[in-house]
């Protein structure tokens, strides 16, 4: 019997995950928490085998950062990141934090049990790609990594001059990338682009 800790600030989402865990005979729900940082403290109690960790939790706490802390202190605890946000960096950051698996909530509950089983059997289950979202006329996969980096800076409210310094690029290059993105999406201003990117959750501001 594997002991499970669920971390999600939405009662509804938590309820669904709890039902899923309770229905399975191989898993036992130990506790559900709203705050990712409280989960880090909770893991001190021992007796947790698996954490189902939401990314964006109570008060904007970062589930990926909390996962990294749990993994550094308790490497034997398995962590599955669960999210519904198609944020382009989440998969990459979850891997960097040492999380064992990653599951998109919208896929369906049957799958989470499968991911849990495979994870507990030592497998690392990650989706091949982030779900595709449309930004204007462009698909999210049409943006280059450099463009996404600059887009993230724009979303965080950083001016072009500062982006150039931060990314060690010339202002002209930064503007070139922005122009490329505007051409792809069909937007006239970077403001329109930024608002759509945030609205589609391709990038979450300051997260």
């Amino acid at each position, binding site marked *: 019997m594997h002991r499970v800790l669920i971390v999600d600030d939405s009662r*509804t989402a938590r*309820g669904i995950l709890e039902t899923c865990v309770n229905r399975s005979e191989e898993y036992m729900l130990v506790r559900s928490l*709203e705050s990712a940082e409280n989960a880090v403290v*909770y893991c*001190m109690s021992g007796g947790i085998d698996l954490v189902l960790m939401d990314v964006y939790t109570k008060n904007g706490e970062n589930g990926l950062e909390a996962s990294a802390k749990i993994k550094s202190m308790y490497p034997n605890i398995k962590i599955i990141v669960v999210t*519904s946000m198609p944020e382009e960096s989440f998969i990459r950051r979850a891997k960097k934090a040492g999380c064992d698996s990653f599951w998109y909530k919208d896929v369906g*509950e049957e799958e989470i049990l499968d991911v849990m089983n495979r994870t507990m059997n030592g497998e690392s289950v990650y989706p091949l790609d982030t779900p595709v979202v449309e930004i204007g006329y462009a698909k999210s996969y049409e943006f280059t990594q450099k463009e996404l980096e600059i887009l993230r800076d724009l979303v965080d409210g950083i001016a072009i001059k500062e982006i150039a310094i931060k990314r060690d690029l010339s202002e002209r290059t930064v503007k070139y990338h922005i122009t490329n993105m505007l051409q792809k999406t069909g937007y006239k201003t970077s403001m329109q682009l*930024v608002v759509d990117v945030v609205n589609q959750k391709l990038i979450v501001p300051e997260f």
Partner: protein
Amino acid sequence: MYFMMNVLLVTKTNVEYYQPIAVLSTLIVFAYVSLFVMLVNVVKKKRNITKGSIRTATDNLPIGLYIAREDGVPIIVNRKMYELMNNIGFKSYQSALGLWEEVEKHKKLKAKHVMYAGCHTFLFKDGSVWRFNKDTIGIDNSKYIQIVVNDITSLYSLSEQIRDNNEELKRQYKSLNSMLKNIADTGQQEEILQSKMRIHDQFGRSLLASRRYLNHLDDKLGLDDVIKMWQQSVERLNTDNFSEEVTDDAATKELMDVANVLGCKMIIDGDNVKDNDMLLSAIRECLTNAVRHGKATKIVVKIKENNGFLKASISNNGIVPEKVVEGGGLSSLRKKVESVGGTMNIELSGEMVLKVVIPVFK
């Protein structure tokens, strides 16, 4: 020949008549020669640099110029410089070193002092702006002090305008950022909606299956299958109530529960305690250290809010360390607290107490 003879004859015979004309002609010629000599001298003078010409040239410059020996004794001070020194209220006219000392101290002056692009700059009441630069120049193994004062009124005005625009831009970015965060938060609402839709769908599937079973439309569908489907639907509703009630102290209460699970009773003493990220981080850090290193069973958090600051003291009944070395957790907490203008202190007197003062942003 006849004509010449006639002229000589006439001249000789009319000497008295023609004498004044000859004198006048001589004078005119002399005047022309004198004027020519004078012009030549003027041209010559213009080609040579003299003390006077330097004085005139520097006085006509639109900048303030003060050139002095290395020991400060002035060599050239132009008219504009005198005017500026007088208008600003400097007293050390007779020494470049004294003058520069006054520039650097900039006290009790008539013009407002600012540093602009790393230079001492003075703002006059009439709106003009003058920037002081001091250099040491070397000529023939000697060193000289050169103080140049430039009129940067237009440049300064444009810079001010750019600075104002940048401030406005930053304010707008901040406002935009806050709006963007709100958009990001709607993600949770969408998530909830999708979950509710899934529950709705499951109920729909259960109803459909029941109808098909009751009307014998599907031979493969057994009573057990239908009951299982309804059980799943009901289970979902029973797990929790699905209202997304949000309270402003949920994370704090949750942390108290977590402390209980760890065998450490947490008492929070304060009125109207609300979740505060910084305070929660401090309590978590204390709780973790108190349980892990101090074997504490009780942790007391006293909170007071006044004048826009949240003051909290967090103590525990665990083993008191002789000395606290701020490692990863405490040092990052200190950075976090101090980055928002707060303070953090650790006291070791009978018990370990962590005190934090955090500004409250509303």
